[in-house]
């Protein structure tokens, strides 16, 4: 899938996160979090796992996290990708 438009997903509530996506020539992931010091590497790993699953190779993805667990990170990023990508078909 390819990010072809700006999109966002998630909320600013605690245990949630917001994901902002926009088209970009390269893949770049920026992470901000209330628990950045302890968990940035884990959040990044979870984001990268989802991006790989959807074969995303470019785009600018910004995560603003409020202490979300892995399942929520995956879900919000998936929603963001569906909103930002041209291919609106089935989840693989």
């Amino acid at each position, binding site marked *: 899938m390819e990010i072809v438009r700006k999109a966002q*997903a*998630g*909320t600013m*509530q*605690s*245990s*949630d996160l917001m994901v902002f996506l926009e088209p970009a020539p390269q893949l770049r992931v920026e992470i901000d979090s209330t628990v950045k010091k302890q968990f940035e590497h884990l959040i990044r790993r979870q984001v990268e796992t989802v991006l790989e699953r959807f074969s995303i190779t470019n785009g600018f993805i910004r995560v603003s996290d409020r202490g*979300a*667990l*892995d*399942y*929520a990170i*995956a*879900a*919000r990023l*998936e*929603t963001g990708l*569906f*909103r930002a990508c041209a291919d609106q078909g089935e989840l693989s």
Partner: protein
Amino acid sequence: MENSFRLRRSLLYVPGNMPSMLQNIPIFASDAVMIDLEDAVPYSEKDAARTLVHSFLSTYQDRNKEIFVRINSLKTDWWQQDLQAILPALPDGVRLPEADSPEFVEHLDTVLTEFEEELGIEIGHFKILPSIETAEGVINCIKTARSSNRLIGLAFGAEDYTASLEIERTKTGEELFAARTRVVWACKSAGIQAIDTIFSDVSDMEALRHETALIKTLGFSGKSLVNPRQIEVVHEVFAPKQEEIDYALQVIEAIQKAREMGTGVISLNGKMVDAPVVKRAVKILKTAQAHGLIDMHLDEEVIYGHK
């Protein structure tokens, strides 16, 4: 229809688009939760909520309570996508809003069968709990209660019901009496559970207690809840009192004695004990058992005597 005796006193709504609530589901003390994709989720977030609920349920493997998902009404364009997203994560069932007539339940039943075949799971796995929440729904609920083998009960919804009648909902609930009674008739005659409506004022525990006592008296076996703080009050009201248990045990003893003497009726403390009294006593003892208040074996012979 479902014959097994399962406690469903408290069915807690959890908003489907809120991770902070979803991930607390394992620790809520309610008998069931109903993850909401309908009214608690704004139109623009339906897609996000489906994905989030699926993602959560996939990680929640050791389930310690029944999980229902309230999908969007069959009158909307969303319910099929709801099912497609959440059924692979195997909830126990679906709460169906606006079940105004048996046809809605029958339609959902057919679709659930198709999903079960596709997922390769037992036909009938997904249960249905229809909401009776309009004047039309109340009128048709007698038939709706018999419209599918998947039904575990009917759930009365007073907020939408009063809106459909263009009246205000009061705290004392006089305006709901006839509808509640009809829902109970429908459920009891079909052998399923009657689940009462939510009580929305989370700060008024006394009024909640009063309403719960009222609906227990009418024949409801449980209640939909909007806040985990309400669980304890509802469980307290539904728990059999010690004196009820003691009396029920006396009734069982008395009827056994009666049968030894070759009769089906006997006097206990000056009151007649016969089959309907025994049935009520057995119901109380089964409920007490389910609450972990007593430990005894109740067989058919105790209830009905020798053939």
